């Protein structure tokens, strides 16, 4: 499976990374190089193999329903590039 420039553009848009037109050919060839190399996995017989999703334990640990956090608006907002009072601010969004 190799990527055409339209796919590179679409993937970049999904990932929200701006790609200039003149960057496309190089990016396309790099990504195709990596994908071509990854392709060798198709040779492995994985019939009946359960996929391994996580790195470790088999079972989620649950915590008790208690309020132990929050009430730190100032800390949460302290690193914000733009804020308005107690809100984060972004360019106006049209839904």
């Amino acid at each position, binding site marked *: 499976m190799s990527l055409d420039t339209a796919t590179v553009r679409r993937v970049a848009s*999904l990932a*929200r990374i701006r790609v200039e037109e003149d960057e496309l050919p190089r990016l396309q060839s790099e990504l195709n190089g990596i994908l071509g190399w990854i392709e060798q996995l198709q040779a492995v017989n994985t019939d009946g193999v359960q996929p391994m*999703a*996580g*790195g*470790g*334990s*088999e*079972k*989620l*640990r*649950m*915590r*008790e*329903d*208690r*309020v*132990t*956090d*929050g*009430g*730190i*608006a100032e*800390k*949460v*907002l302290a690193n914000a590039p*733009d804020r*308005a*009072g*107690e*809100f*984060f*601010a*972004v*360019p*106006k*969004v*049209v*839904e």
Partner: protein
Amino acid sequence: MSYTLEGETGAWEVVIGLEVHAQVTSLAKLFSGAATEFGADPNSQVSFIDAGFPGMLPVINKECVAQAVRTGLGLNAQINLWSRFDRKNYFYADLPQGYQISQFEFPIIGKGEIEIELSDGSTKQIGITRLHLEQDAGKSLHDQHPTKSYIDLNRSGVALMEIVSEPDLRSPEEAGAYLTKLRQILRYLGTCDGNMEQGSLRADVNVSVRKAGEGFRTRCEVKNVNSIRFVMQAVEAEARRQIEVWEAGEEVVQETRLFDTSRGVTRSMRSKEDAHDYRYFPDPDLPPLVLEQAWVEELKSGLPELPDARRTRYVGDFGLTPYDAHVLTLEKETAAFYETVAAGRDPKMAANWVTGDFFAGLNRTGHGIGDSPVSAENLGGLLDLIKDNTLSGKLAKEVLEAMFETGKAPAEIVEERGLKQVTDTGAIEKIIDEVMAKNADKVAEYRSGKEKLFGFFVGQTMKAMQGKGNPAMVNDILKQKLA
């Protein structure tokens, strides 16, 4: 008669499925220890986890899982002992992590079913496809500034249950009845407060139209409809739009739309352009959710009685009419109130008083069952006073009115106002003698055959007794004396 909409080319059937997002009732969020309370100051109920800070990790809240299991049990659904959380990836200003933790491939609850009641008295089974747990996003405020949107993350990370129905609904009425029933079940279970104004319950409405006998056509999803009435309106508006599209010879495009409540139409939603590619994958921060069957059983044994079972019991055991049983079981609080009133008393009489004068009193005084000035114990006490002939029905109504005004117990009001019914035979005889003496001519007429004058004597006696005479005794004694 099945519901159809008329287009230029004839009748169209409407196919509806609902995805309901119900906020789980819990103290803390699904994956963080921040509070879930409604209406707090912006960003005051936000942990670094909810704000998607670097290195923050989710840890699941056991109560949220328990609530999902309870809901699954209430929907007669399959409880999956093994489920998993996936990441749904998309960018949005109020989605701090850039993904929503949800359950895609393996939801905690599988197939279930609920019964809805329609206005013609019929019922219909509606399939539940699944229920899964997921995080809510934050809130964007678009109307605070001319060029900016403001973001409040208080809701970010609050647990939601997404409850997906089968496309079994065929009319706005059915959609409304389904949502009403679902809300009722959630409120009975105590797993969601069902408050649609505060956004605790929102519906995404999937609508398509078709000609009779066809398979499904392309559907559109109308997002975030926040009242039962709007759901019903949105179904019709969207169905009419699709009919126009088809009839114009065009194709309906599968997309996400918004319902404009002021104009009563749906419109395409720009911010969902990546909706076709969420890149779901298992969340590597969260091992699988594995439940013990014994725990599920424990939760099951702690479930309250649900509305359907309760209604059946009211009709079967108490002899109530299906209508009264329905009205009394609509809200969990009403049913509990009724059962307290009916305990150890005549259940039918209790039902009459609760659905009649008591509901009327609530309406008149602008109260709900939750803040009723008349407690169930006091209403029961009132019924006891009728039963032991302390009060006549008419007096009881007066006492109830006074109870609404003062919140006092009925006995206290009876005492204060001297409303006690007179059951002393001698006292009643004395009054009747006086009435007969004053109306000797009427007595003669009665005795000569004008029997309809009996009502006149009852009225005069009661009037003289200020309504406190026991009606049955007044009748009996009058009959003897007039004979």
